[in-house]
């Protein structure tokens, strides 16, 4: 299977998404380090696996987020971002400016089920580096904790 294209060759950052726009990232329980205090792991900000892009329906690697303003404009609460994930998941928030400061771009990618859906993609290289994932994890705020697993 050929490597997917570099995301920056396929996606373009949308300047209409203001730097103070809030992005919501759904957090799997395994992406939180619980001791000594809950903190996000860098794995919470991984791209989709390159081998699964057809199933995801996107042309290059990226990670999904929800635009809070779009969630609210559809008359939904922030927790609507969890609709297809279930109550065990948590939510982390970042601003678009924080994401862009980590060499990432953002574009809207609405779906029928999630009209607030957007994607964050790396502006450098074939996928988001661990370095940038770590920076995103350090800057994000866990606004809803996932269920704590054993």
């Amino acid at each position, binding site marked *: 299977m050929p490597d997917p294209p570099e995301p920056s060759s396929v996606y373009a950052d949308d300047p209409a998404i203001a730097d103070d726009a809030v992005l919501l990232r*759904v957090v*799997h329980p*395994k*992406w939180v*380090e619980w001791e000594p205090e809950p903190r996000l*792991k*860098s*794995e919470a900000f*991984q*791209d*989709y*696996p*390159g*081998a*699964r892009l057809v*199933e*995801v329906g996107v042309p290059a690697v990226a*990670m*999904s987020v929800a635009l809070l303003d779009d969630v609210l404009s559809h008359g939904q609460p922030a927790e609507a971002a969890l609709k*297809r*994930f279930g109550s065990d*998941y948590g939510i982390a928030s970042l601003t678009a400016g924080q994401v862009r400061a980590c060499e990432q771009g953002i574009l809207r990618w609405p779906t029928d089920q999630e009209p607030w859906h957007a994607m964050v993609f790396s502006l450098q290289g074939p996928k988001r*580096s*661990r*370095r940038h994932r*770590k920076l995103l994890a350090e800057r994000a705020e866990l606004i809803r904790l996932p269920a704590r697993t*054993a």
Partner: protein
Amino acid sequence: MSDLLVRPSDESESAAALSRQSVFFVPPVPSSAVSFAEPINPSWLPAALRELSSFAELRPNWDGYQAAPVGLSAIATAARVLRGLPPSLRRPTLTPTAEGGISLQWQRGGHDFSLEVTESRPAVVYAQSGDRWWEGPLDEAPGFVVDAFKAAAFA
């Protein structure tokens, strides 16, 4: 560093040949050595191996974002790494990755070291000490990575 950390399985140890029981076997300490020798394995090893075992239960799309299941070969590699660690090392944080690999991470103060093992490519290292950081294949790791590992991982 590369002597300490084991490469992914070669063909003589394919995933099909590995049973879960053999992957997680922890050799017993000889009774004659109990009174006089330092512990061979870290005290956290059994719990860490149980955690690795739980990763084998993850199904495709386990994260809701199309994550691949964690490969048995990746689990075996991570288990071998853990069993090779000295008892003075702190327990790493273990995390399954979206590509079906496993991340082993130590972090303390401004020092961060992680090793990601997968079935499909060589191990990748991320190391940070303060403002200095490096990320890439284990074989290409520069010297400061060892210092970052020691600062992050040893008790």
